[in-house]
């Protein structure tokens, strides 16, 4: 048994070196803006740039709309497929895996082709249209995660019994969905939402090709023009990601566990 633990420790130690050294190096690098001493100058520089806040806020806004759209599209579909059309489930699983197989770059290429200003749905013809297209594109990227989060949430509650009980009490379909199913999977939806937010904030490809001023393209601009600010931004991004993931972990503890065996 002693030997058994030794190899485990060696693997974890090697992994720790690989994963922690870049973080330390990035952090120290970000502190070296002022010659000779360690200082937080690069962070001051980042936070005094109005474009940092405008692009970050813009990404947060896109993320919020993406989450709302994702919930409206995914939750009813997953609910009815689980309840009434289980034969559709494999199809849904397949469709929601597609964004992991088709690269985002290829999808956005298709969007630009299909929805340009001279097409039948000219999304890219106006600013608001481009924003809508960006939201839909972000939702496509988040679809696999949102679907899985909602599906897991539905699995842990007994939707058949809940639906029957509500129907006997005279609830309408809309009431069942909004006041019974949704509150029960709220925690699962939230974890999907935070993952979506992390994806949208880190997104670069689509926003840059659609020419929208989100956080990703802003980062690249800073990266090509500045020396120390990028490392500060990397640390800040890591903290943001950490915050989003930390919320998911925290929420997992509050998830309802009322279901019988599925």
């Amino acid at each position: 048994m002693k030997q058994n633990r030794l190899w485990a420790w060696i693997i974890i130690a090697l992994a720790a070196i690989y994963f922690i050294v870049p973080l330390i190096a990035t952090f120290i690098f970000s502190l070296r803006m002022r010659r000779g001493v360690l200082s937080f100058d690069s962070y001051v520089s980042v936070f005094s740039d109005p474009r940092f806040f405008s692009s970050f806020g813009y990404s947060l806004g896109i993320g919020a709309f993406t989450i709302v759209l994702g919930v409206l599209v995914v939750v009813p579909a997953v609910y009815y497929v689980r309840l009434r059309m289980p034969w559709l489930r494999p199809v849904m699983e397949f469709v929601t895996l597609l964004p992991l197989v088709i690269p985002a770059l290829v999808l956005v290429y298709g969007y630009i082709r299909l929805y340009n200003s001279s097409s039948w749905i000219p999304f890219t013809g106006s600013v608001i249209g481009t924003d809508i297209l960006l939201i839909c594109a972000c939702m496509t990227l988040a679809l696999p995660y949102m679907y899985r989060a909602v599906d897991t949430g539905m699995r842990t509650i007994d939707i058949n019994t809940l639906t029957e009980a509500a129907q006997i009490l005279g609830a309408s379909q809309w009431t069942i969905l909004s006041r019974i199913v949704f509150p029960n999977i709220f925690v699962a939806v939230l974890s999907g939402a935070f993952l979506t937010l992390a994806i949208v904030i880190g997104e670069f490809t689509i926003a840059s090709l659609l020419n929208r001023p989100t956080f990703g393209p802003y980062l690249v601009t800073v990266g090509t023009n500045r020396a120390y600010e990028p490392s500060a931004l990397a640390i800040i991004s890591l903290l943001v990601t950490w915050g989003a993931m930390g919320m998911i972990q925290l929420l997992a503890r509050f998830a309802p566990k009322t279901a019988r065996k599925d």
Partner: protein
Amino acid sequence: MSSNSAPAAHASTGPDISGPVMPSRNRFRLGFQWLSIAPFIIFALMFLAAPTVSLLVQAFTDRAGNFTIENFRGLASDQIVSAYTISIQVSAASAVMGAVFGLLIALALIRGSLPDGLRGAVMTFSGVASNFAGVPLAFAFIATLGRLGLVTLIMRDVFGFDLYRTGFTLFSFWGLTLTYLYFQIPLMVVIIAPAVDGLKREWSEAAETLGASKWHFWRYVGLPILWPPFLGTLSLLFANAFGAIATAWALTGSNLNIVTVLLYNQIRGDALQNPGLGAALAIGMIVITSVANVIYLVVAKRAERWMK
């Protein structure tokens, strides 16, 4: 896996619920039912199916609008072939290494009798690191292993080893692979951990009682069970790296000749000077990620049959 048994279980409860309901309400419910699924279907058609089909059509169309396979012949040019080659090499290397190291870490965590707290910490970190990709990751590696990166400088000044004199750059095959591993390994850990958890302690005890050595246990029980999820995640990691662009772009700008950067430049400003060729390039990417997934499905099918 479980999808085979699920419909049967639902089918048995289905008629009980809808039996006593009036026909008129039933029709109303049917309408509501389709109304709930319609947004999902419309979304999938508009933002997944239609763009792909449109690229497919474009790839088979020449400038005059006639059917052609000339665009796919065009893919055989030196620049495009070498872009595909580097992309496939980096994706395959980072996927295989990520999968192997990720599995080792998961095994060490779950079966290495390490302190309990460590497992939670590593899983949380993996969740974060698997999402810490794109531009910030590139910045972190430039600060670490770039020409003026901290580790590069320390190795040169303290150990007298000039990494960049060996021909290493972050923009090379190894540089890119090393960077990609930073999100590939944690992703593997997150996905494979439940499967490793599924290896019950009783099984290794049973094997031991029957006189099996550690090697026998892993050869005939452990690894065959982990094989399908391992391959599944491997194909996912491959597609993940193959479609990645933000990290590479922030590391190198438009200099690196990988297929995503090539396509990005094509979308930006028709760099290949031929829209049909660009579409063929995109379709080629889908074909490659699909092939990775088909290989997985075939192997998983065989592995499952063998497990029975």
